[in-house]
């Protein structure tokens, strides 16, 4: 139970209005493209039209001659400085600017720098590149064929296989499958999609030749990690690099990788000693920056006739594009995909993933995926429904029979994860009651008699976030701790800085609320800063729903350290022993004599003006938090759909989302996150795909074809919660940002399949666009 502080203090549990809003609603945000520095020039990339081709020549003469053009950088130029290639976050390497060949349509080939945007655009048209087309590989299933074109000539092994990864006991799982009376399987494709935050990626690289300092303003979800990468790759001393991540217009994982545009802008600035701005267009963003998913998955469940699931077997083909640039912890080439046992208690499981190269843009980990948890949760929730169909059992009942019971937590899954806490039955019960499940099933039966198509889809997902403990997690070798530094001023106000970086999650408010909770200093008196590597303590950034579990924890621990020192000061001021003191948010008082008290403000003042003898002045603390475990938010989503059998259009009639993320800092902000994530899940389920034709042309390379839901398509979301705190987190919180995107695609797809299951449909792949569904209805003879 978290003690609720007063509205003035506004600690945890309050729906505090956001402090950051004031500048955004006045149009006074400071996004990267808003930055204007004296002498600043503009860079633009020249990109390959071909998916696979040899570069025969790059002619930059005409581009260089255009008045206003300062430089044109090619791959050959970068190669001279050993910068044509850079490491990726997956220990592969990626071309910054192409040399020799290009490997995906829209790959970066040259970088033009000019006095203004328009001249840069003109100049990029004047760069002439001669290509010799090569055979294109876009089908990952063909990537391992003996006659498949070998894409990566730079690697030792001359094939398109990136990795094979497996976990679990293959033999023991096989044994269970042999004996099991009931088996169900599904082949589920999670299409390639893209997070498409409304602000595209970009930077202003500012090298000051007089001071030797390089400042990079960039759209970065992980400024410190990026600074270290620039230092290692560029050979620039790390103390001379400052990365500033200002206001970011949405991240969703898109702003974690290092993109060629950043490197080119830095090189240009180092060369020209002027600030160089590079901002990509939306088309460039969709076609070349970190995509998400593209997992071809097969899942099989072995069960007994009562529906008790015994074993799970999963095999996945991962399409990584031309370079393995997926951003995930080192030991996990398939991210946290092995959470695919989900909310269920399996005695055995086995999971294997093979990653391959294709002529497509690199990426894979993005779009609120929690490191492939979206893929895993989708798969398990789909195959469980397929099993329910096989057993002719109600899908809610099947889940209930197989949930990990709350008594079994902490629960060690057979694929190696120790779930911290969970109460799946309670979340599902709340969701089903709220949606009126029994009534809906009755209505569905009646509608079926009349030939009307209505479906109910359930998704009871378990998430895994908060990466992560140093013994298992690192990115490029850097352990995945996070940090907080708090300083209390003489007048009792505070400043707190963290190693994370908000892109809309409301950290300026929520972190202040944590400090308020722990110290009783009103949240309005606490300034929160992130994103400037010169001032913020080192951290790994914000993605994978990790901020609250890591930096949030560090904030609480740092605040508690301050409280410990404050207690000593209070004892000194009150002339008593520390043991005589009690704490309530905002003050220490003498046990039994509450009027003998010192407020935190008085204590802060004393820390600078009247310290106990021998005590170091000041009142501050810093904590680098190495989480003991990950956290496991969970929930049940229920979706009701009505299908128009004339158009194949799916109307989401109702959607109930019950989330459990443990103790909540700001309910209003959590609810907002859920709304946003559910909307992304809706988009993924029904309208989004980045596809490639057989020549490697991107289909879905602009908002004409890659669709974002508007307010009209987006239904009204009904949210609720249960609260099962994390036993190992300093204030029992788990993180929640990605849960809605993790849990909802299965709810949508399960609902649509449920609507037509009686016609013999077992599975429909996403995106379930109207034309696709209509063809199925026609095939089944029920299209209008």
């Amino acid at each position, binding site marked *: 139970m978290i003690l609720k502080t007063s509205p003035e203090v506004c600690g945890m549990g309050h729906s505090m209005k956001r402090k950051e809003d004031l500048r955004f609603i006045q149009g006074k945000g400071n996004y990267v493209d808003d930055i204007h520095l004296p002498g600043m020039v503009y860079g633009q990339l020249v990109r390959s*039209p*071909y998916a696979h081709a040899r570069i025969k020549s790059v002619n930059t003469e005409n581009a260089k001659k255009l008045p206003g053009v300062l430089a044109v950088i090619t791959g050959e130029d970068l190669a001279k400085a050993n910068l044509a290639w850079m490491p990726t976050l997956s220990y592969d390497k990626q071309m910054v600017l192409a040399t020799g060949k290009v490997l995906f349509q829209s790959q970066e080939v040259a970088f033009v720098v000019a006095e203004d945007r328009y001249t840069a655009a003109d100049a990029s048209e004047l760069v002439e590149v001669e290509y010799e087309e090569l055979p294109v590989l876009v089908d990952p299933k063909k990537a391992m064929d003996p006659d498949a074109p070998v894409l990566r000539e730079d690697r030792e092994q001359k094939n398109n296989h990136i990795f094979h990864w497996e976990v679990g006991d293959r033999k023991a799982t096989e044994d269970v499958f042999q004996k099991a009376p009931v088996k169900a399987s599904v082949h589920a494709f999670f299409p390639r999609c893209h997070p498409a935050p409304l602000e595209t990626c970009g930077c202003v690289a500012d090298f000051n030749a007089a001071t030797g300092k390089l400042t990079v303003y960039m759209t970065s979800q992980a400024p410190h990690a990026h600074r270290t990468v620039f230092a290692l790759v560029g050979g620039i001393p790390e103390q001379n690099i400052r990365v500033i991540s200002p206001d970011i217009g949405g991240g969703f994982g898109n702003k974690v990788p290092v993109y060629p545009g950043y490197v080119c802008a830095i090189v240009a600035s180092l060369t020209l000693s002027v600030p160089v701005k590079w901002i990509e267009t939306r088309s460039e963003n969709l*076609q070349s920056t970190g995509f998400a998913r593209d997992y071809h998955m097969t899942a099989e469940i072995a069960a007994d006739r009562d529906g008790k699931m015994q074993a799970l077997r999963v095999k996945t083909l991962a399409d990584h594009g031309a370079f393995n640039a997926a951003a995930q912890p080192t030991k996990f080439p398939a991210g946290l995909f092995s959470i695919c046992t989900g909310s269920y208690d399996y005695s055995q499981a086995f999971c294997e993933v093979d990653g391959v190269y294709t002529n497509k843009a690199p990426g894979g980990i993005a779009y609120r995926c929690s490191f492939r948890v979206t893929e895993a949760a989708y798969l398990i929730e789909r195959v469980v429904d397929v099993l329910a169909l096989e057993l002719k059992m109600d899908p809610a009942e099947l889940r209930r029979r197989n949930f990990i019971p709350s008594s079994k937590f902490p629960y060690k899954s057979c694929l190696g994860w120790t779930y911290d806490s969970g109460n799946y039955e309670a979340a599902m019960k709340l969701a089903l009651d709220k949606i009126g499940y029994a009534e809906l099933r009755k209505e569905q039966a009646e509608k079926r008699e009349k030939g009307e198509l209505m479906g109910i889809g359930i998704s009871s997902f378990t998430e895994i976030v908060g990466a992560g403990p140093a013994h298992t997690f690192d990115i490029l070798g850097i352990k995945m701790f996070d940090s907080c530094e708090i300083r209390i001023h003489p007048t009792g106000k505070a400043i707190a800085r963290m190693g994370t970086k908000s892109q809309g999650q409301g950290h300026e408010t929520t972190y202040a609320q944590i400090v308020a909770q722990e110290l009783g200093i009103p949240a309005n008196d606490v300034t929160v800063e992130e994103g400037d590597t010169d001032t913020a303590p080192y951290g790994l950034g914000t993605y994978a729903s990790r901020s609250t579990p890591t930096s949030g924890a560090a904030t609480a621990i740092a605040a508690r350290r301050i409280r410990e020192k404050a207690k000593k000061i209070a004892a000194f001021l009150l002339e008593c022993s520390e043991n005589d003191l009690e704490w309530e948010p905002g003050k220490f008082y003498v046990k039994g004599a509450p009027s003998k008290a010192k407020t935190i403000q008085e204590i802060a003042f004393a820390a600078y003006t009247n310290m106990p003898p021998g005590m170091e002045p000041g009142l501050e603390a810093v904590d680098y938090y190495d989480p003991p475990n990950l956290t496991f938010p969970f929930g049940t989503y229920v979706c009701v759909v009505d299908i128009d059998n004339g158009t194949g259009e799916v109307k989401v009639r109702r959607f109930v989302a019950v989330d459990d993320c443990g103790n909540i800092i700001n309910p209003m902000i959590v609810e907002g996150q859920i709304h946003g994530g559910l909307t992304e899940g809706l988009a993924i389920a029904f309208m989004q795909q980045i596809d490639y*034709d057989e*020549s490697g*042309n991107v289909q879905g390379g*602009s908002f004409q074809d890659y669709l974002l839901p508007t307010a009209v398509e987006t239904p009204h979301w009904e949210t609720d919660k249960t609260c099962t705190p994390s036993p190992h987190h300093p204030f029992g919180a788990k993180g929640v940002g990605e849960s809605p995107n993790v849990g909802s695609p299965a709810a949508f797809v399960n609902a649509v399949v449920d609507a037509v299951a009686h016609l013999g449909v077992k599975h429909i792949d996403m995106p379930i666009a109207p034309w696709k569904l209509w063809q199925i209805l026609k095939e089944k003879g029920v299209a209008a």
Partner: protein
Amino acid sequence: MGQKIEKTFSVKEPLDRVWDFLSDPRKVVTCVPGAQITEQLDDKNYKGTISVKVGPSVTDYRGEVQIARLDAQNHEIEILGKGQDVRGRGSASMKMSGKLRALPDGGTDVTSVSEINVVGILAQMGGRIITEVSNIMFAEFTKRFQERLQQSSEAPPETAEVEPIKAGSLAWEAAKGVFRGKS
């Protein structure tokens, strides 16, 4: 991005005259908006260029044309074309089969099946635009074809002004076509 386009049109000229014209690339090229032959390599292979303008954007392709099959008996012709954008923005290839049939009224039916494959930026803008642009170019082609046929077939091929089809109209027609849907 592959597109298959089938077109049929008829001309009032007799089959032999039409066949003569159609089997001579230097004559046919005068009907293709924005195209010209730059070099003849042998009796079957030519080098050429074509300029395609959509709105303010011009794409210049440079490539080869090959008469893959010329069947004077059955009046069938197959032409292969392949070109690269001179600025390195993509490529296009085309296989066109043409068949002539004499009509009872003395005229000739021309049936063509073209398979077009576009790689590059143009292919992203959508098959919609490619289809519409192809339709417009084909309409212009048949118009010029009929006009040139009516002129004397002995006159040497004109060094016609190589002018890409009017920019604005192409874009507007293409856009209208998209909104109107396929006909």
